[in-house]
Structure formats: structure tokens, C-alpha cells
């Protein structure tokens, strides 16, 4: 199969999955027992007020009509109106998303770097004390709730030692502006990138300091799977002939391990990064709450507190679409890098 037909087949497979996913969310939010509007008011509103409320949100129509509205809305990028202030949910989500993306990217980088480093060490000291300690650490990371780890880091490094700020994204008022060249304006919403675009190094350092604890908590919780993957893959590779040959030619051990052997682990790690994206988002939701990080997770948690069911639905749909898109991209990238997949 050529790459092109593989991509087409993979995209076509995504469509029914997306439709199922959207239907699932609709079933959960509209069909499952529990009327979102009544839940929102906690049974404390006049019937007329409730009826008007329903009309404004389009929830007075029949279920099939609502379903069609909902699907066509998603296609147009419309995720409905918030129960809180009737503003478009999609807009609120898009403004909160860069914060989550920035946290997720740094969390993933920390998880992968830490995972590869420890995984390689573990495989090189196979079946020794060091190997057991690293493996146990890897298993322990599965059992730690990220918000608990976040609170411990907060307690030690910000409340006790004052090394890092305990929450937020940047000192209020010093949000980076991005690039401004004449009439041209470019801002990504990622504070680390925007501060560099602005050319303001002190803001960049500040953004990194705010980012460090939350992304470290997230990275630490996710690194276990990368440790295991790297270890297994390295144990297999280090036994192969080409590694022995490389050693026999007198190459430095570091070169053999990191340049020759680790290259074989690259594809599985890449795939795992895609597979872990859903876990990363789940972790981000909880981490954001711990560190008052103004991203999507915090948005979702705030909306839960306000019983804003349309916004909850919108956020859930957005998370679902995002994960589907990322897994599609990873699969395509994988097929591009490894032609065997396309067979």
C-alpha cells in the first residue's frame, strides 16, 4: 500500500470513530437519566424561567433535532452556548487551550527525557540493584495521583523553599505580548514562545519558573511507561550483532548505547507518545487544578462547580476530537517512518 492510500484509509476509518464518539457524548449528556437544565437549577427555578432557558440553549427541541443541531454544530466548530453566560463554549475553550498545550508539551518532554535516561540506565545495569530500583520507581509512578504529587512538590519547593511560584501561569500583568512588527501581530498563547517572540528574556525565565512544577509533576507521573519501553527495547537491541560489531570496532560505549542502540527504540517511543496523549490530558486536568493553571482542565472543573452542562459537554467533545486527531497524526507519521506498517 502506498503512503497515500494508507493515509486515506486511516482517515476514512477515523470518521465512523468520531461519529461514534460524538454520539456517545450526546447519549451521556442528553439521554442518560438527569436533565441537564434541571440539574443546573437544582430544582430551584420557576417552570417559565426553565422553559425560556431551554429555548435560549436550543434544548427545547426533540432529541433527534438536538442531535442533528449538535452534529452540524461540531462540524462548524460550534460547541453550543454556556449555561453560565450564554457565550459560545468553543471560544472559551480556544482561549484556555494554549495553557493546557504548553503544560502538556513540557510534561511530555520531561516524561520522555526522564523515561529514556532511566530506561537506558536500567537496561545497562540489567538485574542489578540499580535496575530493580529504577523498575520499582517506574511501577510506583503508576500508583501516584498526579494531584497529590503536585501538592507535595508545591509544599516542598514553593511553600517551604520558595524556589518556584505555587500556582498560576505568570506574574499577573506581565503576560507576554508576542511578536509586534508594524501592523503584524503574532502570539501563540504559549507564554514561553510568546516571551521569546517579544524578545523579553526575563518574561521567558518567569514563564519557565511558573511552568516547572506543574510540568514536572505531570512528567514524573507519566515517565514510568517510557522507562519500561526503553528498557525492554534496549535489552533486545543490546544483544544484537550490530551492537557487538560497533563495540568490537572500538566505539565509545556512550556512542554505542545512545547513537546506535537507542535509535531502534525511537519508533516505539514515538508511538507511545501518541498513545499517552489521552493520559497526558487527563493528568493535565488534575495538575491544572492543583496549580491554579488557567487551562482547559481548570475550565472544566470550574464548569462542573457551576453545573454548566453545555460547557462540560463542549469540553468533553473537544478533548475527544483532540485525542482522535493526535492518534491519527501519530499513525500517519509512524507509517511514514516505518514502511512495514503500510503492508
Amino acid at each position, binding site marked *: 500500500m502506498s503512503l497515500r492510500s494508507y493515509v486515506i484509509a486511516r482517515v476514512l476509518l477515523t470518521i465512523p470513530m468520531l461519529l461514534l464518539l460524538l454520539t456517545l457524548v450526546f447519549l451521556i449528556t442528553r439521554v442518560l437519566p438527569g436533565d441537564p437544565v434541571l440539574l443546573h437549577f437544582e430544582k430551584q427555578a420557576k417552570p417559565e424561567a426553565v422553559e425560556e432557558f431551554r429555548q435560549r440553549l436550543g434544548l427545547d427541541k426533540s432529541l433527534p433535532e438536538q442531535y442533528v443541531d449538535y452534529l452540524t454544530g461540531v462540524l462548524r466548530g460550534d460547541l453550543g452556548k454556556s449555561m453560565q453566560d450564554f457565550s459560545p463554549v468553543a471560544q472559551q475553550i480556544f482561549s484556555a487551550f494554549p495553557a493546557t498545550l504548553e503544560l502538556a508539551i513540557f510534561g511530555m518532554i520531561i516524561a520522555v527525557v526522564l523515561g529514556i535516561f532511566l530506561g537506558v540506565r536500567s537496561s545497562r545495569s540489567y538485574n542489578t540493584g540499580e535496575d530493580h530500583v529504577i523498575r520499582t520507581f517506574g511501577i510506583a509512578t503508576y*500508583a*501516584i495521583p498526579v494531584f497529590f504529587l503536585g501538592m507535595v512538590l508545591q509544599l516542598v519547593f514553593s511553600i517551604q523553599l520558595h524556589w518556584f511560584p505555587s500556582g498560576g501561569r505568570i506574574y499577573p500583568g506581565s503576560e507576554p505580548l508576542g511578536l509586534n512588527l508594524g501592523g503584524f501581530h503574532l502570539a501563540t498563547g504559549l507564554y514561553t514562545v510568546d516571551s521569546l517572540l517579544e524578545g523579553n528574556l526575563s518574561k521567558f525565565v518567569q514563564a519557565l519558573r511558573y511552568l516547572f512544577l506543574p510540568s514536572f509533576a505531570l512528567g514524573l507521573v507519566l515517565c514510568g511507561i517510557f522507562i519500561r519501553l526503553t528498557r525492554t527495547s534496549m535489552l533486545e537491541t543490546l544483544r544484537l550483532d550490530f551492537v557487538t560489531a560497533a563495540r568490537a570496532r572500538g566505539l565509545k560505549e556512550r556512542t554505542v548505547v545512545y547513537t546506535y542502540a537507542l535509535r531502534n527504540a525511537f519508533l516505539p517511543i514515538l508511538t507511545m507518545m501518541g498513545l499517552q496523549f489521552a493520559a497526558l490530558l487527563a493528568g493535565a486536568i488534575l495538575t491544572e487544578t492543583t496549580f491554579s493553571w488557567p487551562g482547559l482542565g481548570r475550565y472544566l472543573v470550574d464548569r462542573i462547580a457551576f453545573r454548566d452542562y453545555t460547557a462540560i459537554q463542549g469540553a468533553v467533545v473537544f478533548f475527544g476530537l483532540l485525542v482522535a486527531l493526535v492518534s491519527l497524526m501519530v499513525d500517519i507519521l509512524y507509517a511514514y517512518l516505518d514502511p512495514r506498517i503500510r503492508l
Partner: protein
Amino acid sequence: MQTERGRIIVQLIPQFVRLSKRGMAGWTVLIGSVIVVAVVGMTLLAPWIAPHNPIAINVGPIMAAPSSEFPLGTNHLGQDMLSRVIWGGSMVLQVALISVAMCVAVGVPIGLLASYAGGNTDKGTSLVMDSIYAFPGLVLAIAIAAMLGRGVLNMSLAIAVVYVPSYYRIVRSQVLTIKELSYVEAARALGAKSRSIILRYVMPNVVPSVVSVATINFADAILTAAGLTFVGLGLSVAVPDWGWDLTYGRQLLPAGAWWVIAFPGLMIVLLALGFTLIGEGLSELWSPRLEQ
């Protein structure tokens, strides 16, 4: 190797007896089991061993650090943290147990039937299961829990939906291999009915994988339940719960009251770790691939 696995059920019991002689994996299972039994035992004995009523307020001073009188300190309501830690596992354990039972009861039969039937039934079911599997689990659980409202059953259901596909997938992959094996083919040739083939030949083979998925599922369910509580979808505040103590403890952190979060948090870690160790050990013991 595959025909060997047919007898694996019979082998299960001696494996548990001689765990300490089965190397690293055996020790992992043993340590995990000790942790889980200890935590479950503590929770069951809570009415007799807790020094104070876990929900009574002003039992001691407000936010007192650990002392000889209150070994784990007190919280902002003057509740005894030791008593709350001893009692705090009951809800989490119930939720985890019910959700795992729901998952097994739904995921295993669907996996067995759909993949044994093959064809479009298998394709359709797989598509649905893959869609749920691809969804970020916590987000899906949040959506369901938010709609269903508070309650042990509702929370268990929210968690169960997320993990059904894991059982489906593991059962399906096993059935696809097993149903091509010669002894299953022989049984079919002898005129055995599909039902008895599934129950007598296929099912026993999937039990080990289901058990190891279930233990990992236990750990995940405990973490997800704590996560749901943390985002504001927990059970009643009136019931002592580690998740709630963590959630409230967050506001007490700036005052330096580390003991309010440290102990409930460590209990969650310990319980989840116990189940994870059992699951990791079991899958290593039962997977011939890793024996090398």
C-alpha cells in the same frame, strides 16, 4: 505452549503457594498482596481500631501538627486525621470493587461472544470499543459522573464504562488465537456446540489475562475515583474519604499543614501500588515471553 495454557487454571493455586520461590515476579505479587490485605483489613476493622469518630468535629485543636495525642494531626475542623485515614478507604474500595465487577461482567462476555462470532459482529463491537478506548478515560468518567450525580453506584458506573474496552480487547486477542487451535477445531468437528466450546475450552484460557487486567483496573479505579473527587464529583462530604481530605487539604497547604494531605495521599498511593504490584507480577508470571 498454547496447549499448556489450557491447564493453567489448575496451576494457579500452587503458584500462589510458592510465590516466594518464583523470583522477582513472585515477590512482587506477594508484596502487593500483603499491602492490599493490610489496607483492606484496616478499613474493615476501622470501627474497632479508630481512636475517634472520623466525622466528629473539634475532637482536638484545629490544624494541630502530629503529636502523641493525635499521631497524624488534625484538620481545619479539628477532626482526628488518624481516624479519618483509617476510615477513609471504605468508599474508594467499594467503588473500585463494584466498577471492576461491572467491567468483568460486561467486558468479558462481550469479548468472548463477539470475537467468537467473528465477521460483522466482531467488527462493529470492536469499532464501538475502540472509540471508547481512544477517549481520554478521566474526561469520559467526568462527563458520566457529572450527569449521573453523586453516589457509589453512579461513580462506579462512570469508572466502569471507561475500562470495559480493556477487558474486551484482551479477551478478543486471546479468543482469536485460541479458536484456531487444533483442540478447539477438534471439539467443533466432534459436534460440540458453540456455547460449550466457549465455556469449556475458550473461557479458561482467558482467565489469567482477565485477572491481571482486573488488578491493574483496581489500581486505576482507585486513582480515577480520587481524581473524580478532586474535580468536585466526589461522594458525600459526610463520609470520610482520602480523596476529599486531599481536595480540602489543598486549601490548607499555604498554612504549611502538610499532614492533612500527606497521610490520605500516601494511603491512596499505597493501595494503588499494592494492586499495581499484583498486576505487574501476575502478568510477568503468566507471560512466557518475559521469562527469558
